[in-house]
């Protein structure tokens, strides 16, 4: 009897330690990546001032001497992301409300499957489809010299953010206690009043988190934006101008740079900037998700 118990305890002990080891390993690798990123990125600031890097208006990494100002890239990323958010947030939240509250059984299943399918499309494929359909369309509609613009990128990225926003916002709506809804109905509220005045406010922190995570996905997206935003590193004036994002810059130039050059370090420094942006977004989303109801 006692032997059995000690054996079980031993087994439990070993399993616990194994799980601990796995956890530690993942933290270790993340740290390793982070340290590498920091080491390579911070090396840039031995020769370039931080303010010149962040606020410099021109990015000519291969001229002599190189100009390494990433303001156009930051603005490019922000513009494309902002546009994508404007498109995807209202549609995504409305879609979540429709699925969670209004759609009858069959329609709901079809919609959910559709959303999942959208999430499963690799971003290269989306970028490719965007390139042959969306880009010419934007060019024609707005009568532009090229359809490779921030707008095209925003529309494409909106498609990528949508599944995240819809599915997390939908969960948030489902997690509102049923009793709230019943209480509102019992007071004679219409379905719409219940959604607007009760469900949405009650689910607001989850919905905000959904929005933040959707935006996080958009900021980090690389392939599709590289294919359809035109990649010109100038400060964008309108949505109809070509832009270049932080991510696309790294992806496009990393292969051609000389290891150890200023340009090489600058790309890592861009990585740090991206890391900080996504980190802030994720932490904000987390704060919203775990916010205790007052």
């Amino acid at each position, binding site marked *: 009897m006692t032997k059995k118990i000690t054996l079980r305890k031993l087994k439990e002990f070993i399993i616990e330690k194994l799980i601990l080891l796995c956890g530690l390993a993942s933290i270790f690798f993340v740290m390793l990546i982070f340290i590498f990123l920091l080491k390579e990125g911070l090396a840039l600031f031995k020769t370039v001032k931080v303010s010149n890097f962040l606020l410099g208006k021109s990015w000519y990494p291969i001229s002599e001497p190189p100009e390494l100002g990433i303001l156009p890239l930051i603005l490019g990323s922000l513009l494309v992301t902002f546009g994508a958010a404007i498109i995807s947030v209202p549609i995504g939240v409305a879609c979540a409300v429709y699925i969670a509250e209004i759609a009858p059984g069959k329609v709901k299943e079809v919609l959910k499957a559709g959303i999942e399918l959208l999430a499963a499309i690799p971003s290269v494929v989306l970028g490719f489809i965007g390139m042959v359909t969306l880009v010419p369309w934007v060019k024609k509609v707005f009568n532009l010299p090229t359809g490779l613009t921030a707008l095209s990128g925003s529309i494409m990225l909106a498609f990528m953010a949508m599944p995240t926003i819809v599915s997390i916002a939908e969960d948030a709506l489902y997690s509102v206690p049923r*009793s*709230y809804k*019943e*209480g*509102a*109905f*019992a*007071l*004679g*509220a*219409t379905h719409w*009043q219940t959604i607007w*005045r*009760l469900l949405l*406010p*009650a689910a607001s922190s989850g919905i905000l988190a959904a929005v933040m995570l959707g935006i996080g996905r958009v900021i980090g997206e690389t392939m599709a934006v590289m294919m359809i935003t035109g990649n010109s590193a100038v400060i964008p004036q309108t949505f109809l101008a070509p832009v270049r994002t932080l991510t696309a810059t790294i992806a496009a130039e990393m292969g051609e740079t000389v290891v150890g050059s200023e340009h090489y370090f600058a790309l890592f420094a861009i990585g740090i900037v991206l890391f900080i942006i996504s980190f802030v977004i994720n932490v904000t989303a987390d704060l919203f998700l775990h916010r205790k*109801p*007052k």
Partner: protein
Amino acid sequence: MDKFKIEQLNIWFGKIHALRDINLSIYNNEILSIIGPANSGKTTFLRMLNRLNELEPYFRMSGRVLIDGREIQTIDLEVLRRKVGIIFALPLPLPLSIYDNVAYGPRMHGIRQKSRLDEIVERSLKQAYIWEEVKDRLFSSAFKLSGGQQQRLCIARTLATDPEVILFDEPCSGLDPISTAKVEETMLNLKKNYTIVLVTNNVKQAARVGDRTAFFLSGELIELDTTDKIFTAPKDKRTDGYIRGKFG
């Protein structure tokens, strides 16, 4: 004239036959208590009266339910639910302040004027005998109240929509004896102006507040009579058994 008239009412949830051939009337300004063991269909009956059952996906019904002589299906759903308020077993304040909880219904029905709302909130809280306890903290969260206070807040919230009938579904099941006494007192006072239907698991409560008492068993109405008769000389053996069993 009767407030409610129920004729040959049957209700199903999918395959479950929850109510069978119910016929009864509910009079104006009475307290009708409904007693019966678990799953006898009491809640289902109550939720029929303001059509809350229809939120369930597999709900089906036959028969007729009339309010003031008019079939409830022909009345605008929001109007019916305003007329027939319900208090649930667990007090369910909305995640809002005390004031906003009470003002929720009137706002929903289009009352915006601050002075009107103030007046309705005060009157409703007074009617539910909770005004004195909350008047100094109307704008703090409703969740900070005790269970009994929350339940009386829910009563106030229902009163604020100006109902004619109030349904109570085991309103005291989660409350201590003192809170229970307060809620019962509230009900007795409301009787002057409202018609009340009270579902209760507590037979003594039915005896204390009901004018008439109905006994439900397995979805059937076994017996309905004045509370005195039901508790002193029930006609049906099953009613007698249930009441005695409960009295111990």
